[in-house]
């Protein structure tokens, strides 16, 4: 059946049986053609075999074409050229197997090397290379942190950061320089010099970044940014502002244009106010331009803490204004004033004003002279001497001495402020009339060593707890280091120097019933989450007995009512105080200026209500007019106190003691 079927369909001409009887296909026979050209030794001649194979294949194809009658008439035979004879390579050494093994070994070695290199790059060098690659296509930008605000004790802003912008240009990218600068000039009100400089930069195209304006208004910056000027950049930043003008500038200090504190509390509390900057990573194109939308904040900035000061903005303003008016009226060089809470040491106001050397105008100073400028306190120091002697029990207010108006001590003839006959003076009267000679008598009761210890206990000769930047320690020599008349003049404040801050804290000890309390400027801080952290209470220490303090207070009331400080009286308010008129040491080492005139430092320190002191105020006038009656503490400084006291009472809510009439007899 099978053979019949084969015949029916026609046997394929290609299939033939070989010698072994196996049926082979035509293709097999064609490929096996070269076998017919084997040598007698059984090895094939490759060249001959190839030619034979080509000839056989051609013959086969020709044979198939013969089935077409047309082609049978004139058959065509395709003749192929023999392949070019290859020149045997001299480099071909060894057997193919050996060459193959060598090649495999080489390839394996190369692969192993590559794998090792990849492993090395992916492990040891991975971080370095990854960061290097990241640096190529990203840029890290610092996000400034919001600088903390400085508040007064009632939450009013004294210094704060407001949004601002920095406008800069890239001269290499600006397309129309004059037009661009004209637009910027219209919006930023550039000066002629600035405009000329910018045009020159654009012309030169040397630099890729030029500032146009730092800390410009944010609204103007938004307007410039909305124009999308080529080569003009607007970057956001902040600007430090004081909403109250110069109020408190002496204490708060300043920041530089980058927002870093450079003076005052801004410098002292830089770490607190600054916060922590954040970081933003931005992808950049090969040309260096940022790719929009590629910004990623890698570190969020943390806003700085805020400071809540003990200052009262209204009291601070009033203090500065009263000082400015007084120094302008006197023609003095400058003045300082401090108002301090008697119990807590919190400073309500600390002002420094000075005449500008160039313009002659009086203004609030950038420097806090109340803390950094030391001077000889003069008669104000008599309070320390007499209260110390009272505390030691060496004298009482009624202890009396025969006091001449002048006396020779060592190489100096020391005098009282006014001539008077030798007369019996009580300790109380010595303080009331501010007798220098009488105070020396009291100091001699204690001895210089003991007196020096008391002055140190009152805080002279060492920095206060404020540790204000540039704060002076003043000068308080050891007793053994005093020379000449200094040994006794320290009793009434010559030969010793202190800052206004030290002096107000010292006299506040008397107001605070004999207990020294350190001055304090920072009441609290506000953290990033809005929580308030109160600062520690001021350190305090007993210095003199309460009885001595009360006795001294009574003497100081007499000073105001009938002594040298009558111009410090406030109607309806009991005031205790002490004046001081000190010779001021000039730069030439003497107490005289270059014209031979004496120069003075006039002071008044007082507290009220005298029955229950709540505020202590010190006013110091630097170089009041010499040769006039306005050079004394009672005339130059005490009136400032009298003018300031009602403001303090009103702003601080102090209620005068019922029934108190000041110095007016009831």
């Amino acid at each position, binding site marked *: 059946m099978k053979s019949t079927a084969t015949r029916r369909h026609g046997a394929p001409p290609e299939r033939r049986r070989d010698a072994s009887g196996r049926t082979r296909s035509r293709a097999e026979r064609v490929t096996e053609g070269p076998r017919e050209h084997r040598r007698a030794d059984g090895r094939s001649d490759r060249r001959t075999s190839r030619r034979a194979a080509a000839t056989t294949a051609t013959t086969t194809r020709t044979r198939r074409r013969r089935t077409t009658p047309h082609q049978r008439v004139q058959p065509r035979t395709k003749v192929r050229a023999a392949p070019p004879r290859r020149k045997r390579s001299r480099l071909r050494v060894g057997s193919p197997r050996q060459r193959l093994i060598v090649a495999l070994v080489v390839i394996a070695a190369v692969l192993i090397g590559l794998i090792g290199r990849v492993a090395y790059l992916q492990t040891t060098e991975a971080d370095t290379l990854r960061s290097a690659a990241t640096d190529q296509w990203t840029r890290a930008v610092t996000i400034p942190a919001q600088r903390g605000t400085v*508040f007064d004790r009632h939450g009013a802003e004294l210094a704060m950061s407001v949004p601002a912008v920095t406008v800069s240009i890239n001269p290499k990218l600006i397309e129309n320089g004059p037009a661009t600068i004209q637009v910027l000039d219209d919006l930023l009100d550039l000066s002629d010099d600035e405009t000329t400089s910018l045009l020159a930069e654009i012309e030169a195209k040397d630099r890729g970044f030029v500032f146009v304006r730092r800390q410009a208004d944010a609204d103007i910056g938004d307007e410039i940014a909305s124009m999308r000027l080529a080569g003009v950049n607007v970057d956001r930043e902040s600007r430090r502002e004081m*909403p109250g*003008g110069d109020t408190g500038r002496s204490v708060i200090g300043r920041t530089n244009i980058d927002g870093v504190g450079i003076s005052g509390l801004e410098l002292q509390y830089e770490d607190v106010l600054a916060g922590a900057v954040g970081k933003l990573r931005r992808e950049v194109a090969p040309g260096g331009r940022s790719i929009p939308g590629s910004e990623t904040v890698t570190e969020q900035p943390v806003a700085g803490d805020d400071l809540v000061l003990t200052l009262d903005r209204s009291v601070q*303003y009033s203090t500065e204004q009263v000082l400015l008016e007084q120094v302008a009226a006197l023609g003095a060089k400058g003045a300082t004033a401090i108002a301090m809470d008697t119990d807590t040491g919190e400073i309500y106001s600390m002002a420094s004003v000075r005449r500008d050397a160039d313009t002659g105008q009086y203004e609030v100073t950038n420097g806090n002279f109340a803390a950094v400028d030391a001077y000889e306190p003069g008669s104000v120091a008599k309070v320390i001497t007499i209260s110390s002697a009272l505390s030691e029990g060496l004298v009482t207010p009624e202890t009396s001495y025969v006091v001449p108006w002048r006396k020779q001590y060592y190489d100096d003839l020391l005098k009282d402020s006014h001539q008077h006959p030798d007369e019996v003076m009580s300790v109380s009267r010595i303080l009331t009339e501010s007798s220098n000679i009488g105070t020396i008598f009291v100091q001699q009761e204690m001895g210089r060593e003991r007196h020096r210890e008391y002055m140190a206990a009152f805080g002279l000769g060492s920095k206060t707890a404020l540790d204000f930047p540039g704060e002076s320690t003043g000068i308080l020599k050891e007793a053994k280091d005093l020379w000449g008349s200094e040994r006794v003049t320290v009793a009434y404040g010559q030969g010793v120097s202190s800052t206004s801050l030290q002096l107000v804290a010292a006299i506040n000890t008397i107001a605070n019933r004999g207990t020294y309390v350190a001055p304090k400027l920072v009441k609290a801080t506000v953290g990033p989450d809005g*929580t308030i952290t109160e600062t520690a209470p001021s350190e305090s220490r007993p210095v003199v007995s309460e009885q001595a303090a009360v006795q001294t207070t009574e003497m100081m009331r007499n000073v105001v009512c009938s002594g040298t400080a009558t111009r410090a009286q406030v109607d*309806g308010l009991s005031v205790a105080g002490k004046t001081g008129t000190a010779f001021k040491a000039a730069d030439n080492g003497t107490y005289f200026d270059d014209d031979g005139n004496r120069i003075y430092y006039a002071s008044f320190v007082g507290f009220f209500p005298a029955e229950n002191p709540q505020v202590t105020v010190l006013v110091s006038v630097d170089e009041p007019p010499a040769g006039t009656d306005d050079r004394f503490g009672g005339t130059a400084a005490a009136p400032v106190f009298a003018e300031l006291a009602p403001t303090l009472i009103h702003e601080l809510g102090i209620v005068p003691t019922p029934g108190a009439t000041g110095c007016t007899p009831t």
Partner: protein
Amino acid sequence: MPALPLLRDTAPRREQAAPAPELSVVPRRRRWPAMIAGLAWTSVFLGLLGAAVFHTQLAERQLELDRLDRRVAAERERFDELRYERAELRSPVRLAAAAGELGMRRGRASTFVTVAPLAVARQLAAAGPIGDRAVQIVIHSDPLDQFRAVKSVTEGTP
């Protein structure tokens, strides 16, 4: 020839014992591989579609977050600007200048008076005590408290 009947007897027996032949000419194709393949393709397609939708949603949410961040920053800036303006308006410098323009001058003398309790009682009886509304205005206008509230929300983000 006598063997033929035997063959006749045995042949039917063999036919009866053999299993029933497959009657279908074309063998039935198994469908479950196709179903599994289809299910797999559908799963892959839905998975890819879901991933695309998820990423789209993620991008949209991120854009929304960025927009909210920018708005918070802008509002925070606005808050600081308004705070600054208020501080300026309430500063003693401006108040004194405004008062000076109105012809007001600082008093050179102060007189402290003691108000009799009876006078205070009469005044309260006539005008009434201070209302809660006035107290609230005073209490809730504390700039420091307002600032703290905003700062606690922004958590230090400028």
